[in-house]
């Protein structure tokens, strides 16, 4: 088996190896763009067709938590870039620190996502038999985390939406299918990213990355930035469009 840091047999120079790895990662990211693009297309089309239902859906998402998560991910991209920089200038001690910061921020993101997802479960907003967009409005005692004035606004919004679209619940379920589909896929990619970061952490602690050879840090960095960019798309698409506040 080959060890990290060596010139692999099929390549002639480290330069060629690095170029190949980089090109490979970029091509892989292009496939990811096509992959996420498909579900974003489905979302965009449905948003256009079921405007009121999707607006209602967006309003049940917490702007605070979403914005916080956005800042968390942007910060993690910064710490990741710092890790890459550290490996490029040979500051070997800094690499594991920045990697650890990135991982921590990743876990913070997961934590917030967990809070959001469990909220959705409690509020009967998970697609399935029990899905009910009106649940919190009709059962305020079961949704203690929503303030009464918010509930009132939501009730008004939902009544307007229901007037525009009698099948509101069914179409709102489509919104939530997209929500869980897109954020779930994104979270899965982040989990893989954190796994890669942990692998990088292990190798950086062993001092493997030098200015002459830091390819894994480089290409995992590319992947992490891509995962971040996907969230930058998801946040406005899911949270920000059609908010009536």
């Amino acid at each position, binding site marked *: 088996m080959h060890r990290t840091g060596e010139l692999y047999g099929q390549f002639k120079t480290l330069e060629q190896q690095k170029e190949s790895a980089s090109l490979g990662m970029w091509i892989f990211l292009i*496939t990811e763009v096509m992959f996420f693009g498909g579900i974003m297309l489905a979302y965009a089309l449905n948003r256009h067709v079921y405007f009121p239902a999707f607006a209602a859906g967006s309003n049940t998402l917490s702007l605070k938590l979403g914005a916080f998560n956005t800042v968390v991910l942007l910060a993690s991209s910064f710490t990741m870039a710092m890790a890459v920089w550290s490996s490029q200038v040979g500051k070997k001690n800094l690499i594991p620190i920045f990697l650890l910061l990135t991982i921590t921020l990743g876990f913070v993101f997961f934590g917030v996502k967990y809070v959001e997802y469990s909220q959705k479960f409690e509020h009967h907003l998970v697609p399935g038999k029990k899905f009910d967009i009106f649940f919190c409005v009709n059962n305020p005692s079961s949704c203690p985390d929503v303030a009464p004035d918010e509930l009132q606004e939501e009730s008004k919004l939902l009544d307007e939406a229901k007037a525009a679209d009698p099948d509101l619940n069914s179409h709102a379920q489509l919104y939530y299918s997209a929500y869980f589909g897109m954020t779930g896929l994104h979270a899965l990619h982040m989990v893989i990213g954190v796994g890669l970061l942990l692998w990088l952490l292990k190798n950086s602690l062993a001092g493997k990355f030098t200015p002459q050879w830091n390819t894994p840090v480089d290409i995992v960095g590319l992947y992490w930035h891509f995962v971040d960019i996907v969230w930058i798309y998801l946040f406005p698409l899911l949270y920000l469009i059609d908010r009536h506040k």
Partner: protein
Amino acid sequence: MSNIAATPAKTLPEHHYLNATYGIRSWLLTVDHKRIALLYLASVTLFFFIGGFFAMMIRLHLLTPSGYLLSADTYNRMFTMHGVAMIFFFLIPSIPAVLGNFFIPLMIGAKDLAFPRINLLSWYVYVVGALFTLYSMISGGLDTGWTFYTPLSTVYSNSAVAPAVIGVFITGFSSILTGLNFLVTIHTMRAPGMTWFRLPLFVWAHYATSIVMILGTPVVAITLALAGMERLFGLGFFNPAMGGDPILFQHLFWFYSHPAVYIMILPAMGVISELIATFARKQLFGYHFVAAASLAIAVIGFLVWAHHMFVTGQSTYAALAFSFLTFLVAIPSAVKVFNWAATLYGGSISFDTPMLYAFGFLGLFLIGGLTGLFLGCLGTDIHIHDTYFVVAHFHYIMVGGAIMGYLGGLHFWWPKMTGRMYPEWLARIAALILFVGFNLTFFPQFLLGYLGMPRRYHVYPPEFQVYNVMSTAGASILAIGYLLPMIYLTWAAFYGKVAGENPWPATGLEWKTPSPPPTENFPVTPVVTWEPYDFHHRPDLGLDPVSTHEIMPAHGDD
């Protein structure tokens, strides 16, 4: 009779990639692209048999108009699984994963692909996907058609849809990884002097194919993921009862599945370029145009998907646009056919088995391609959509085209892969049997379709029986045409006449290695100073104006 200086009796090299290491672990954990190619060869051949079995069930059932053999439901499962097995598990991997994997590094002068371990991973991913699909087949199969249209597939079907969807989803990643590997390899690992326009057209074809794999396959992945989630968890994107849209599924599905047919044909076209140049002993006419045409097919191929959806109620203007683009995509294919024909003109043609397959390709691809135009034309498509005309059209391209290319390539490169020649006369007879069987199977289907026999129906009006019987008879002959090469190629791998380095001779870099090649392909990195398909200025191959007074046709060893 030979046009190369007499050489002593040929022997196999002492050390080569097949005997470098022994034991099942050395094969299952190999990172040698040549061994991985053989692993793929075994897997795709297995699925060819499986798909072929379902084909036989279809044809046997259709011997009689009222369908005595299978129930309607079972018949649906037969044609569905025939399509799934053949398309996803045979045709799409076949040439890239077997011949591409084996020969791209050799053709560009590299020791291996850029990512050998990802290459092995791609095979394992294929196997895992295949296992899911096999599980679906064994637990009753699925009856939705290989196109998985919703809401039948996601809501109403009582068949094993979920495992099949998961299986095809997973196998898609095998395709993506292969394409990624090829793209990076062709960019970064060419030997010194191997410039872009010295690359064999086989490599250009695979470059174009890889672009399609990279851009298209992820879309079918997300489509199948959404469909699978709808089936398993009740999501509603494609279900009208929940406000979803089945046409959305069709758009997303065909956005990949049309380019997928170019994944199937482009590599075969690459093989044909190699075969025609070699067996006409002539530089390929219009090399640059053929290379550019490969890329054009790949690009334009992404713009025509809704020609599969002309009867879905799409806007006339959209249909017009897609119809126009469909006609456009035929042009680069035609450019290639004209260039191949021009290569033949004035060439020194020999009728070795690979060339017979190339000729078969030329004729059958021509028919398949031209009939595609009738389908792409809005007015005529209304009448022939979803009839046997479509079935005949795509079988002419996929079987008459892609599989002929695959078999031609297998025969052409078999001596390099195994070190031994196949039996030439038996191979020629098999090619002929295949050609006859193929035409007898599928030409009547054009007539059936034109006369109105719908596809995917388990019964048909009695007046169509004659053509159906002809088609089934042809299928039996076709089966023999396929079985023969499987038998004699396997035999030849062990007992065939030792072939030597370059039995044809051909001009590619892969022919400058021993047969079979050593694991590292080239002990010393070659430096390329020649143009491709130059049969007049290659003294290193015994092909130059001085040593040969008259260009003799190419042939295998007599």
